[in-house]
C-alpha cells in the first residue's frame, strides 16, 4: 500500500461530523465575530470596524455594565472553585472508600440534580427560599434560627452568592463523578505499597491519591471556568433578564442576552450583543490558553 494515496475512508468517516460541526458551531461563531464589526443605521447594516468595542469599553455606562458583569462572573466562578470542586473531591473520596455501604445510592442521589433543567432548579429554589411560601424560613425557625433568614435572592449583597450556591448544588455531581472515576483507576498495588511504608487513611489521600488525580482536577477546573463564563440559564430563570436586584446578579450571559434581544422597551441591538459575545469568547479563549499552556503542560502524569 502506498502512503501517498488519499485514504478515502478517513474522509468519508470524518465528513458528517465536520459538516455538522461547521454548520452549527464554526460558521455561527465566525459570523458572530463578524457581526460585532457592524452597526445598523436607518435599516442598513454598515461596517464600523471596532466602534462597537470602543463603545463597550469606552462609554462609561456600557463599560460599567460590562465590568460589573465580568466581576460578578468571576465571583460566580470563584464560588464554584472554592465550594463545588472541593466538595466534589471530598464526596468522591468518601464514595470510593471500600467499606462505605449504599455507595451507589449516594452516587445517584447526588448526581440527579445535574440532569434537571435549569428552569426547574431555578423555580424550585426560588420557592424554597421564598420569604412568603418557602420552607427555608420555617426550617430555620424550627431550629430557632429564624433571625438568620433573609430574603436572600432579593438582597444585592447576597443574591449572587445564593445563586452560585444553587448552581453548586446542581452541578456538584460532575466533579464528583470525574474524580470518582480517577480514584477508581488508581491501582491497588500503589496504595498497598504505601501501606507497607506506613501511609494509610488520610495521609494516603493527601500523599498518594491527590497527586494522581491532579490532572482530573485540572480538567474539572477548566470545565467549570468555561461553564461559568457561558452561564445564563439559572440567572435568567431565577432573576429574569434584568438580573436584579440592581444588576447584582448580572453576568456576561444575561448582559449579552439583554443587549442582543432587547428587553421591555429596550430594543435589541444584535451588533452590540455580538460585541459582548466576542468579548466573552476572548475571555474564555484566554482562560483556556492559560490553562493549556501554563498549567496542563507542567502537570506530571503517571503511567501505570
Amino acid at each position, binding site marked *: 500500500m502506498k502512503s501517498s494515496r488519499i485514504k478515502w475512508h478517513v474522509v468519508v468517516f470524518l465528513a458528517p461530523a465536520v459538516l455538522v460541526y461547521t454548520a452549527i458551531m464554526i460558521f455561527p461563531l465566525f459570523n458572530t465575530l463578524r457581526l460585532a464589526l457592524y452597526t445598523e443605521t436607518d*435599516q442598513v447594516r454598515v461596517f464600523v470596524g471596532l466602534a462597537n468595542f470602543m463603545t463597550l469599553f469606552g462609554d462609561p455606562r456600557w463599560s460599567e455594565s460590562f465590568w460589573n458583569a465580568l466581576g460578578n462572573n468571576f465571583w460566580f466562578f470563584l464560588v464554584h472553585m472554592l465550594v463545588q470542586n472541593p466538595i466534589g473531591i471530598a464526596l468522591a473520596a468518601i464514595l470510593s472508600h471500600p467499606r462505605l455501604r449504599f455507595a451507589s445510592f449516594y452516587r445517584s442521589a447526588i448526581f440527579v440534580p445535574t440532569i434537571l433543567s435549569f428552569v426547574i432548579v431555578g423555580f424550585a429554589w426560588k420557592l424554597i427560599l421564598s420569604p412568603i411560601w418557602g420552607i427555608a424560613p420555617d426550617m430555620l425557625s424550627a431550629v430557632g434560627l429564624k433571625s438568620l433568614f*433573609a*430574603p436572600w435572592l*432579593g438582597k444585592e449583597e447576597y443574591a449572587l452568592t445564593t445563586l452560585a450556591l444553587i448552581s453548586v448544588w446542581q452541578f456538584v455531581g460532575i466533579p464528583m463523578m470525574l474524580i470518582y472515576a480517577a480514584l477508581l483507576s488508581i491501582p491497588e498495588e500503589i496504595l498497598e505499597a504505601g501501606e507497607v511504608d506506613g501511609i494509610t487513611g488520610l495521609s494516603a489521600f493527601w500523599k498518594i491519591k491527590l497527586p494522581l488525580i491532579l490532572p482530573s482536577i485540572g480538567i474539572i477546573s477548566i470545565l467549570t471556568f468555561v461553564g461559568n463564563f457561558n452561564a445564563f440559564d439559572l440567572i435568567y430563570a431565577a432573576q*429574569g433578564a434584568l438580573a*436584579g*436586584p440592581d444588576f447584582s446578579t448580572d453576568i456576561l450571559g444575561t448582559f449579552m442576552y439583554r443587549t442582543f*434581544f432587547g428587553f*421591555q422597551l429596550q*430594543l435589541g441591538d444584535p451588533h452590540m450583543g455580538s460585541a459582548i459575545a466576542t468579548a466573552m469568547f476572548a475571555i474564555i479563549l484566554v482562560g483556556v490558553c492559560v490553562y493549556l499552556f501554563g498549567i496542563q503542560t507542567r502537570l506530571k502524569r503517571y503511567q501505570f
Partner: protein
Amino acid sequence: MKRKSLCIALLATTLLSGPAFAEDVTLTIESWRNDDLTLWQDKIIPAFEASHPGIKVKFTPSAPAEYNAVLNSKLDAGSAGDLITCRPFDASLALYDAGHLVDVSGLENMSNFSDVAKSAWQTDDASATFCVPMASVIHGFIFNKEAFEEVGVEVPETEAEFFAALDKFKEDGSYIPLAMGTNDQWEAATMGYNNIGPNYWKGEEGRLALIKGEQKLTDDQWVAPFATLAKWGAYMGDGYEAQTYPDSQNIFTLGRAAIYPAGSWEITGFNAQADFEMGAFKPPVQNAGDTCYISDHTDIAIGLNADSPNADAAKTFLNWVGSEEFATLYANALPGFFSLSNHNVSMEDPLAQEFVSWRGECESTIRSTYQILSRGTPNLENETWGASVAAIKGTETPEQLGQQLQEGLASWYEPQQ
C-alpha cells in the same frame, strides 16, 4: 404495545396540527397576553368565526417578558404569525420602520378611534397608523373591602389619608398593608412611580414638558414620587425584596393584604381568585380638592405582519377589531382593558366601572417614560425600574435617583442636553 400506541399518538398530532380543511384560511395571532388565552378561545374567536365563515383564528401567546425578543426573532426568521399584537410606541414603530408591519390607516373602522388613541401606534408625523388600538389600562389601587371594614379604615383620598390608612393596618397587624414586592422590579416603576407620579407632574403637562426638554428629571415634581415611594417599603410584607409579582397577586387574592397597587389589567384575574369584595381608589392627591391625574395608558393594539400570506383575511379581522361588536366583547371579556374606540361600551364589572369612572373625574395621561424617551440607551423606562426599587429599599436618596435618570437621559436625548 406501548410503542405502537405512542406511534399512533405521534401520527395523530402531526395530522391534527396541519390545516384541518384546505379551503379555510387560518390566522395566527402573536401576543404577550398569555393570561387571556381562554378568553380568546372561548369568547372572542368564536364570535369572529361565527360571523366570518372561512377564516379560522389561532391565538398563540408567549410570556410577557420574552414577547419582544421572541417576536423580533420570529419576524426576522419569517416564522411569525399573521397578526401581531403591538406594544405601544417605539417597539412597534421599530417594527413598522423595519417593514414588518403594514400601514392600516386605510381600514374602514379606523375612523372609530380618536387621534389620542391612535398616537401610540403612529409614525412621529402621524402620517401612518400601523396597529388597530385595542385597549388601555388605568392605574390605581385595588383594596380588600372586608379588611377595610374590619379594621375600620376609610377609603383614602389624599396622601395623608393614604399613609394614615397604611399605619392603621400596620398597627392592627392582621393584614399586610401593601401587597407589592421588588423582586421583579417593574411593579415598582409601573404600579409605583407611574401610578402615583402623574399627580406630582400634572399628567400630560409634565410629560410633554419633559419630552420638549422644558422640565428635568431632577425637578421637584419628578423627584417627589421617589420620596413617596421611599415611605412604602415600611408597609410591605416581610422579605418584600424577594417577593415576585405572582407572590404579590397571591398574597392579595388570598386575603392576606389590604391594598394592592394595581393596574386595571388585574381585574379579571382577581375576580377569579379572590372570594372577598374588592374596591378601587385612584392615586391619592396632595390636598383634598386638588385636580387628580390618572395614568390611562394606551397599552395594546394589533397589526398586520407584512409577510403574512393571508393579508386579506387578516385585514378583515383587523377591521372587525375596530367594530363596536369587538369593543363590547373585549371590554366585557377582559374587564380592566378599556376600549379605546369612540363606541359607547357598557361594562358590567363593578370594579372595571369604578376604574373607568375616573376618566370623567380626572385628567388622563400615559406613562411618562413610554413615548420617545425610551428610544435610546440607557433606556429611561428600564432605568426607572431600578430607580423605583432603589427608592423603596432606601438604598439611594430620591435626589440621587433623579440625578442618575437625568444624566442617563441627557446622554442621548438632545432636548435634555
